[in-house]
C-alpha cells in the first residue's frame, strides 16, 4: 500500500506594529501583565475598534510579495466563542472577503528542484491574550497584553506532500516576512505560529482523507517531527482497518508524539457575521502601488539577480 501525505499549513504571523490592530495600546513584548491592556483590549462595555493603517500596509506588502490578489474591498467578521483569553467573547477576523487572496510561494526541495505552493489566502485578525495555568489557588491567571495584537493568518492550499516540503515552505515564508520587516517571525516566542493540517490517502486517490490539525509546534524541527509522527500514526490506524478521527492534536516535543485535545473536540459553531462596528476596508490601486514601491528586493528576486549578474549557479 502506497500512501500519499497531504499537508496544508496555517501560519499566524504577529505583525510588528507599534500599536495594536484596533486599539492604541503598545505591542512591546515582555511588559508586566495587563499593563498594555486598554479599555478596548479589556472589552469594557461601550468600547469600539479603530483600524491601524500600518497593519493594512503590512498585509498588502505580504500579498504583493507572494503575487497574491489584493482584496480591494475586504470586510471584518466576528468569530464568536467563549474563552478567558478572548475578552469580547468574539475575535474580529476576516471570513469571506480577506485582504489578501490567492497567491503562490516557490520552495526549493532538497534535490534542488523547485515546487510552487499555492497560498489560499491571508487575512487580518486579532490575537488573543494569554492564560497562565500555574496554580493561583486553583485558578488561571489571564494576561491581556497580547489581546488585540495584529495577526496575519496565512493559509496554504493542501499542496505539501511531506514534512520536508512543509519545513521548506515555512522557512521561505519566514524569510519573506523578515525581509519585508513585517514581523520578527520568532517561532519560539510565538510571533510566528504554525498549525499543520495532515491527512493521508492512497496514492492515486483524488479525494482527501480525514485530516487532523496539529497545534503547538514552535520550531521548524518540531514541525518536521510532528508531521512525521502524525503521518505514521495515521498510516498505522488505516492499515489496521481503523478510521481517522477529525480532531485537533497537540505536539509533545518531549515524547515526540501528537496527543488528542479531547476537550476541544466539541464542534465550535463560530456564528460568523460581518463586524457592525467596522466599515468595509476599501483600498485603491494607488494605495497598492504605493506599498509596492516600498517593498525591498525579495530573496527569490535577489537570488535570480545574482545568478544573472554574476553568473552564479
Amino acid at each position, binding site marked *: 500500500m502506497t500512501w500519499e501525505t497531504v499537508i496544508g499549513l496555517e501560519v499566524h504571523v504577529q505583525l510588528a506594529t507599534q500599536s495594536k490592530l484596533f486599539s492604541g495600546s503598545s505591542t512591546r513584548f515582555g511588559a508586566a501583565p*495587563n499593563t498594555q491592556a486598554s479599555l478596548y483590549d479589556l472589552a469594557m462595555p461601550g468600547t469600539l475598534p479603530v483600524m491601524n493603517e500600518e497593519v493594512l500596509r503590512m498585509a498588502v506588502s505580504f500579498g504583493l510579495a507572494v503575487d497574491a490578489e489584493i482584496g480591494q474591498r475586504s470586510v471584518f467578521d466576528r468569530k464568536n466563542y467563549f474563552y478567558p483569553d478572548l475578552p469580547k467573547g468574539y475575535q474580529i477576523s476576516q471570513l469571506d472577503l480577506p485582504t489578501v487572496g490567492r497567491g503562490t510561494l516557490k520552495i526549493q526541495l532538497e534535490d534542488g528542484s523547485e515546487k510552487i505552493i499555492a497560498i489560499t489566502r491571508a487575512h487580518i485578525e486579532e490575537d488573543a491574550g494569554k492564560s497562565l495555568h500555574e496554580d493561583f489557588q486553583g485558578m488561571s491567571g489571564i494576561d491581556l497584553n497580547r489581546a488585540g495584537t495584529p495577526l496575519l493568518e496565512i493559509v496554504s492550499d493542501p499542496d505539501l506532500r511531506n514534512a520536508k516540503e512543509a519545513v521548506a515552505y515555512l522557512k521561505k515564508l519566514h524569510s519573506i516576512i523578515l525581509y519585508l520587516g513585517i514581523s520578527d517571525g520568532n517561532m519560539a516566542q510565538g510571533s510566528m505560529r504554525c498549525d499543520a493540517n495532515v491527512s493521508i490517502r492512497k496514492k492515486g486517490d483524488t479525494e482527501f482523507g480525514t485530516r487532523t490539525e496539529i497545534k503547538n509546534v514552535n520550531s521548524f524541527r518540531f514541525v518536521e517531527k510532528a508531521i512525521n509522527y502524525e503521518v505514521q500514526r495515521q498510516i498505522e490506524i488505516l492499515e489496521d482497518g481503523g478510521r481517522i478521527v477529525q480532531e485537533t492534536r497537540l505536539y509533545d516535543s518531549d515524547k515526540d508524539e501528537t496527543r488528542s485535545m479531547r476537550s476541544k473536540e466539541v464542534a465550535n459553531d463560530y456564528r460568523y457575521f460581518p463586524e457592525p462596528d467596522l466599515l468595509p476596508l476599501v483600498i485603491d490601486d494607488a494605495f497598492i502601488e504605493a506599498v509596492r514601491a516600498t517593498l525591498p528586493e525579495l530573496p527569490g528576486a535577489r537570488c535570480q539577480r545574482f545568478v544573472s549578474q554574476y553568473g552564479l549557479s
Partner: protein
Amino acid sequence: MALDNTDVEKIAHLARLQISESDTLEVAQRISNILNMIDQMQNVDTSQVAPMAHPFDATQRLRPDVVTETNQRDQYQKIAPATQDGLYLVPKVIE
C-alpha cells in the same frame, strides 16, 4: 419554527447561559413564538437584493500606528472580581 428542549439546551450552551430544567419548556415556547413571527420574512423574494450591513456607504477610516494608551492597570482592576499580581483570576477550564 418550533424549538424543543434539546434545541434550547444547545443554544443556551453556545451562549453560555444557565437555563434551569423547569424553565426550558417555557423558554422553548416563547422563543418559538418569536421565531414564528420572524418567519414572515421567508415568503419574500430577495434573490436580487444584496444584504445591507450599514445604512450608509462609507468605508473604514484608518488610524496612524502610534501608541496612545498608557498603563492604567490599577484603575481598571479596581472593579475586577479577582486579580493577583496584575493577572485576572478565573476558574480553571476542565480539560
